[in-house]
């Protein structure tokens, strides 16, 4: 709770400090707020002491573990984006504040205990991102992405609320533990209202995480939004949505597992194939990233389908590794700064900027799941947990990883290749210090983080 307030206040402060026209001041406030928020989240969990008590939010181990990486990812995104934020000093505060407000929404979504806070958290998470997606005001593509995200998001919210209303009709409660108890007590004799509500909530979640039949918005939105926002959506928004997904389905609706698990497994398979097969023919980098994120959503859904005490940790590890790869790659894309955002612009990167190219290769290989890197361990944990209960699902997931390796490796080769001799040589890219720090953090995490996940 304290962490939530600290981050919110630092967001407000950065909103008002922007009037001083000193971008570094805003950055300092925001980073200090994020770090303070992280520390207070941790200490509060460690000492089991919360001096502001509210029954709607409970920061248990799950919320703290996911919340800490949400804060870390936001910090990385803010650091990466600073160089592009500070070009418009009058808006720096707005951008950073919106990211922080969105983070508070993500924290609500990880710690809610009733449907009120879940709904409010979801909206606090989404609404700033609708605005951020359109923050590149002169670019039609950016505003179009914003509109598409807004329309699908608002629609999904409507469906979700309808689902919540049905669940309320079936159980007469908004509290998660009461709903759980109700479902367990009325074994087999549930009113049909609960089933309708469950399906509505399920489809709204699939919308929000961007899984297969409801994925169509995500490539457009990822493509049109500014790079920073794409990174934030891929890392933090997905984390928040998945956290809430797990809380509601693996915990609250666990009693109805037989009802929703088959549907979700079919959708997970569909998601993997749609993401992978569409990614094969992409020429724009952010679109590729979007389809790759759809595929990864498919893998991550396995942790929700499989019922096991380790599922939460596996999901955490998976999103942890995925977030680092994505933020690293987005940072590289910002450094390359190609107007058209072509994948072709990555050609010969390792010869121009060796370190940047190195991080790009690490990120791509980690997404592909190549052994020494963090992404491999994330995938390994997820698949090894699922293989006893759903061997066929894991088999399909592994086939899909194989397809994935194809386009990731194609890009790795592109990064390693020499530039064409007949074309004018691209000059060496300038890398601001902050982005260098982010790249270094991502590289370290990707190289050595995996071993920490196992122990």
């Amino acid at each position, binding site marked *: 709770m304290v962490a939530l307030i600290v981050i919110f206040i630092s967001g407000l402060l950065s909103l008002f400090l922007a009037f001083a026209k000193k971008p570094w001041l805003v950055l300092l406030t925001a980073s200090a707020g994020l770090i303070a928020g992280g520390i207070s989240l941790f200490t509060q969990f460690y000492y089991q002491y919360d001096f502001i008590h509210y029954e709607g939010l409970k920061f248990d181990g799950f919320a703290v573990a996911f919340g800490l990486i949400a804060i870390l990812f936001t910090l990385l995104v803010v650091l990466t984006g600073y160089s592009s934020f500070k070009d418009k000093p009058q808006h720096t505060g707005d951008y950073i504040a919106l990211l922080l407000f969105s983070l508070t929404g993500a924290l609500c979504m990880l710690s809610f205990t009733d449907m*009120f806070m879940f709904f409010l958290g979801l909206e606090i998470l989404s609404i700033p991102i609708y605005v951020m997606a*359109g923050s590149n005001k002169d670019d039609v593509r950016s505003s179009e992405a914003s509109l598409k995200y807004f*329309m699908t998001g608002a*629609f999904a919210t*409507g469906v979700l609320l309808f689902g919540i209303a049905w669940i*309320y009709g079936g159980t*007469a409660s908004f509290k998660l533990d009461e709903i759980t108890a109700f479902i367990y007590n009325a074994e087999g004799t549930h009113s049909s209202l609960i089933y309708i509500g469950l399906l509505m909530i399920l489809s709204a979640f699939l919308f929000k995480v961007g899984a297969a039949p409801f994925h169509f918005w995500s490539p*457009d939105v990822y493509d049109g939004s500014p790079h920073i926002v794409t990174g934030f959506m891929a890392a933090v928004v997905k984390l928040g949505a998945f956290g809430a997904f797990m809380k509601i389905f693996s915990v609250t609706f666990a009693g109805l597992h037989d009802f929703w698990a088959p549907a979700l497994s079919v959708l997970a398979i569909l998601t993997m194939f749609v993401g992978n097969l569409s990614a094969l023919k992409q020429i724009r980098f952010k679109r590729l990233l979007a389809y790759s994120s759809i595929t990864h959503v498919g893998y991550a859904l396995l942790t929700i389908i499989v019922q096991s005490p380790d599922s939460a940790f596996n999901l955490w590890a998976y999103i942890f590794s995925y977030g680092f790869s994505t933020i690293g790659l987005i940072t590289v894309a910002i450094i390359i700064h190609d107007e058209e955002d072509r994948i072709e612009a990555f050609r010969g990167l390792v010869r121009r900027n060796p370190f940047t190219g190195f991080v790009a290769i690490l990120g791509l290989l980690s997404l592909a799941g190549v052994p020494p890197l963090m992404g491999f361990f994330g995938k390994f944990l997820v698949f090894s947990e699922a293989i006893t209960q759903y061997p066929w699902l894991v088999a399909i997931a592994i086939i899909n990883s194989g397809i994935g390796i194809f386009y990731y490796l194609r890009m790795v080769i592109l990064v390693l290749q020499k530039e064409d001799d007949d074309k004018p040589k691209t000059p060496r890219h300038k890398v601001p210090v902050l982005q260098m720090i982010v790249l270094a953090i991502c590289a370290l995490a990707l190289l050595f983080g995996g071993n920490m996940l196992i122990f």
Partner: protein
Amino acid sequence: MILASIFESGVSIQFYIVLSTILFAIGVLGVLIRKNAIIVLMCVEIMLNAVNLLMVAFSTYFGNGDAQVFVFFIMVVAAAEATIGLSILVLLYRNNRSVDIGLFNKLKG
């Protein structure tokens, strides 16, 4: 006379459920088939109002006020959402001179 029977027994919960489902379906259909972005926005509001109706009906049925508080939150958030949506539309209108969603096709592939 079905109408008379309603008046005698009071309006039971089923009627609210049916009405709000119909409203919700109208909203969903509108979002799916209308071309004008402002009308799509209005249809989303219809969906949310269907939810409000259902929640208040259940709340009276169970005799607890939780859902009525929820409805207040939904209304406020819906207003915030509408604000953002209209701002985005103004932004797009300045670039495109139209709010026809069929014309927003710069992002493809």
